[in-house]
């Protein structure tokens, strides 16, 4: 049963990932990304990490990819892009090198993790006790205790980072009055 779920979810993830890279149409690529995110959510559920699964769907599939699509539709870039003209010549070799390096890193991590804590397997999170089904809280208690005690500084720093991003976006989106106002007014009238 476990292996069946894993194979299906892995197929979903791989198909989605390949689709993101190979599909020419931006909207189709974004939809493939949704497929990948759902596959990851299925894997989370199979690992009893229910909260992570639902957060994955709400945040990534429900908000971030919708935002991608929103921008694609709003800016009208939803047509096939010509990828033959390369702005930077070194881009592709560099991408290959970093891709291989990332793959190597991931494989190394998987190999290394086989020798570490086996008891934590199926717990969804490393270091958290294996979740019992009768607890019936979708490991929210364990997750929040971990997040708000041990990692509270990192958590708060992340929120500060998000606020900075919002402020920066507002600043960039705001038209500076001295430079831009005159031509825009001219166009409007």
């Amino acid at each position, binding site marked *: *049963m476990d292996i069946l*779920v894993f194979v299906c979810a892995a197929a979903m993830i791989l198909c989605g990932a390949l689709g993101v890279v190979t599909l020419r149409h931006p*909207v189709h690529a974004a939809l493939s990304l949704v497929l990948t995110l759902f596959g990851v959510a299925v894997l989370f559920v199979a690992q009893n990490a229910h909260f992570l699964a*639902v957060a994955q769907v*709400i945040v990534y599939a429900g*908000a971030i990819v*919708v935002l991608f699509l*929103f921008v694609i539709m709003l800016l009208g870039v939803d047509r096939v892009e010509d990828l033959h003209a390369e702005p930077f010549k070194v881009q592709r070799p560099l991408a290959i090198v970093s891709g291989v390096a990332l793959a190597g890193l991931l494989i190394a991590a998987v190999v290394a993790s086989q020798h570490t804590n086996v008891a934590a397997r199926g717990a969804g999170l490393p270091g958290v006790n294996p979740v019992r*089904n009768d607890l019936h809280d*979708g490991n929210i208690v364990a997750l929040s205790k971990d997040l708000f005690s041990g990692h509270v500084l990192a958590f708060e720093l992340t929120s500060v980072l998000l606020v900075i991003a919002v402020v920066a976006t507002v600043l960039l989106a705001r038209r500076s009055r001295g430079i831009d106002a005159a031509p825009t007014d001219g166009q409007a009238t």
Partner: protein
Amino acid sequence: MLSLDLLPHSLTLATVLIILLKVVVIFVLGLVGTMLMVWFERKVISGMQNRIGPNKAGPWGLLQTLADGVKLFFKEDLIPDKSDRFVFKMAPFLAFVPAFLVWSVIPLGGDFSGGRDGSFSMFGHRTWMQLADPPIGILLVLALSSIAVYGVMLAGWSSGSKYPLLGSVRASAQMISYEAALGLSLAAVILVSGTLSTHGIVLGQSSVSRWSVIATGLLPFIVFMIAATAELNRPPFDLVEAESELVSGFNTEYSSIRFALFYLAEFMNTITMSGIIVTLFFGGPQPVRFDIGSLHVDPNLHLGVLSGTVWFLLKLLVFLYIYVWLRATLPRLRYDQLMNLGWKLLIPVALWWFIVLAALRIGDERTPRWNKGVVLAIGAAVFIAGATLLVVANGVARRNREREGAMF
């Protein structure tokens, strides 16, 4: 995978039968309920507008929806030339399937009178009148409503036509904005009930004074109600299909059965969202039990397992009526009014009230307990300071916009 089961037990023939039976019953009830809802809405609105409404097909026009459905089935299925065919065909299902899946976590009945937990026996297993009770419970509803955004959005985009695209861009912006307010008011309920499971939330609301609508202090309910209406794209928030501006919005290019799927999803969402409101704030299938001071009212319908269903339906009908009432009464909001209401009023208010509730809860757990009056006074002070800041900021923004030449 078995963690999605109701009541942990091993997979036997009986459990499979129970689950299959529940799925079939919910599927049929969902479709019939949607059919009746369409009839109900048309009948009530025509009553409010001094018309008769559907009255030809069947007694009181009850079969009108069925007739409309048959007509839609046999109409020609048009696919526009400029459309993205695959996405165009997929979009109605993305709207329809989430609408159905929400049913699975709503507690639909069971005997809760006299403090029972609503479980009953079936093929020798104790089970609840609810398809699934996953540990994430109510969050599943949020996840599904965020998937439903895709249906509307992709339908508009894939039509390859202007008005549907405008409708879908509006829809996605609106639904994402109001999801935040929806989630924050939901968080207040979760905070008070201490569980995510819908069955647990219902169990905690055993008498009227413990209903979440009172336990969370009414405010989250009001925010949830408004945000849910916006999330459903129902009037007065139906900018998605503003007929006077956008022909019919995101579904303009759809015809035949694909259009019927959108139509069904819309009405089914109204029913499920009312069900969610009843579950979260009004005790779901719990009877209306008063237990205040010396006043004890414990109505028992003596219907056994079905009594919970009767209570649930009675409460549900109130909200369905309210939704129809809103549609018949209120004019449509302008787009900037919609966004202002969501971002500048509902989200800050819901967030502030959530923090106050959390403070009260922490105060209750401490020894000595915090003085509730002091906590509320500090909360009020924070509210006044925050509201003043927000009003001032809005004023500055408005003046800047006017100086630069307003865009809208």
